[in-house]
């Protein structure tokens, strides 16, 4: 992850080009000079805490210039920062801090005021967790995981250096680039659209997390600051194409995090007439592993994730555990030059990481296909395979079929426990305004395109948008629990 070298690079920018803009947040522009000064002030405050060398501190990842400066100060001092989501509950935050053996929870508020709340150490809570090695990593990210208990992922400092070098080359980044940073600061996406940009001395426009679904606001940021680089989930692009105006300054558009619906390609192409488009695939554990250049003018049935990026090895394992050598399908395993050395909770590592031919691979849990030419496509999550009446069914495939109905804006399909069938499928669908779509019409459509067992048993059609997680993905867990409450109040 970010590294002491990153912190030094930012300090050098502050010295050589103090008046160049580093960060834009709401109506403030923070120059590299100001960012360096702020970082120095935080370094001074950190020294006053007299922490043992290599200590871990918890820095809730509020997406502000102050938090970014505070993290840079932590990297400078050779400390390790645990950077969880800022909206984590107090109990969860305390537990994570104890697991990571953080000494303090730090927040950098207005200007240069550092708040440091000591963490109660709890060796019981930290049992089974390795101590972060400040030499190898200075940032601990968390993944939410499907179980809801965050896993702590140390981001390798050397891995970040390699990643920043790759991204700078791949996207031809220079100090005159301007990134729109849409994802939360605690996401691995920030490694690219914040940290790599700061390393090259470019400008980062921070999207206020509280306004991330406000289309006109996000669109205005892109136009006003001459953004050249955008990375985000499909929902971001839905927001950005709403008003239909072109953004000729944008030269790189990156799709990530979710599959891009075909219907979005034409509007995106019109909104960014001079951009190159890439689909990038990755996760917190490995950072980016696949890239595919997209030509929006020639949509393919399903956008591939493409090919492994330089230095990445990818393997496909079939359900019997055998490696698929040619074209085929199975679970994707990747080894990237950027990946973590393993979760702090070491008990999780054996089932997630596996050494093959001397290299450590990460089991993504994603099902992929590889064609004869070596092009990979995502089929869905391995854990999204459910058995309906004994038949293996991929929820995402059902979702794709339903979403292909012309009156559907978005569809989520969740499995519900059923005494007789084991699992039955429930579809939650938002329809286009003024459409007369009903569940019955949707079933007719599904019946033509899906095997019988995969047709959802119940269909909820609504005019309101789907509920979303903080990252803009449809909130499947909430949809599922709401439906269960409806059935069993």
């Amino acid at each position, binding site marked *: 992850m970010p590294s002491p070298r990153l912190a030094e690079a930012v300090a050098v920018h502050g010295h050589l080009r103090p008046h160049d803009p580093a960060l834009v947040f709401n109506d403030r522009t923070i120059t590299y000079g100001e960012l360096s000064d702020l970082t120095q002030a935080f370094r001074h405050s950190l020294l006053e805490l007299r922490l043992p060398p290599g200590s871990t501190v918890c820095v809730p990842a509020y997406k502000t210039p102050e938090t970014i400066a505070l993290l840079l100060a932590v990297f400078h001092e050779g400390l390790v920062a645990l950077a969880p989501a800022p909206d984590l509950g107090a109990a969860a935050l305390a537990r994570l801090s104890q697991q990571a053996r953080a000494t303090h929870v730090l927040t950098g508020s207005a200007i240069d005021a550092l708040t440091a709340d000591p963490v109660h150490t709890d060796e019981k809570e930290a049992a089974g967790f390795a101590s972060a090695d400040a030499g190898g990593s200075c940032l601990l990210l968390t993944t939410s995981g499907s179980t809801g208990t965050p896993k702590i992922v140390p981001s390798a400092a050397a891995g970040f250096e390699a990643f920043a070098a790759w991204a700078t080359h791949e996207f031809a980044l220079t100090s005159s680039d301007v990134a729109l940073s849409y994802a939360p600061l605690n996401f691995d996406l920030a490694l690219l659209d914040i940290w790599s940009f700061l390393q090259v001395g470019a400008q980062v426009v921070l999207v206020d997390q509280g306004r991330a679904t406000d289309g006109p606001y996000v669109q205005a940021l892109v136009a006003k600051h001459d953004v050249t680089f955008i990375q985000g989930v499909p929902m971001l692009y839905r927001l950005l194409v709403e008003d239909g105006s072109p953004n000729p300054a944008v030269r790189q558009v990156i799709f990530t995090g979710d599959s891009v619906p075909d219907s979005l390609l034409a509007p995106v192409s019109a909104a960014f007439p001079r951009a190159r488009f890439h689909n990038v695939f990755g996760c917190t554990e490995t950072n980016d592993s696949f890239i595919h250049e997209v030509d929006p003018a020639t949509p393919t049935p399903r956008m591939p994730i493409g090919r492994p990026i330089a230095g990445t090895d990818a393997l496909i394992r079939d359900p019997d555990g055998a490696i698929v050598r040619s074209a085929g399908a199975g679970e994707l395993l990747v080894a990237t030059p950027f990946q973590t050395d393993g979760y702090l909770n070491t008990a999780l590592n054996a089932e997630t990481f596996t050494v093959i031919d001397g290299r450590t691979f990460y089991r993504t849990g994603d099902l992929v296909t590889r064609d004869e030419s070596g092009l990979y496509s995502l089929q869905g999550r391995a854990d999204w395979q459910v058995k309906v*009446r004994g038949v293996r069914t991929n929820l995402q495939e059902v979702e794709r079929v339903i979403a292909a109905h012309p009156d559907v804006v978005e569809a989520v399909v969740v499995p519900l426990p059923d005494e007789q069938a084991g699992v039955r499928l429930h579809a939650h669908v938002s329809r286009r305004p003024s459409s007369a779509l*009903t*569940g*019955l019409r949707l*079933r007719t459509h599904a*019946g033509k395109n899906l095997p*019988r067992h995969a*047709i959802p048993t119940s269909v909820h059609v609504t005019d309101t948008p789907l509920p979303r997680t903080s990252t803009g993905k449809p909130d499947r867990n909430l949809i599922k629990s709401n439906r269960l409450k409806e059935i069993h109040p």
Partner: protein
Amino acid sequence: MNSKDVAGEIRAYVVAQFLAGEDSSDLTGDYSLIESGVIDSLGLIRLISHLTETYEVSFDDLELGPDNFRSLDAIVDLVTTHSTASAA
């Protein structure tokens, strides 16, 4: 019970059992209940047991194929044919 009552009752049963809480205005007599997954194999068993109890009819094995339950019209036909037969 005339065929209109039968049709109304069967429709109400299907809506209550298989389309609870949904907009059923599109449920016409010829809507494909089986092909569109409204009634699956487990649902078919429930439906048949409801029909045999409510209308005091019994179906022979040949009649139990999904084709005879493909739509509301088909189900009503099947039930009224049997009721007429037993009344006669």
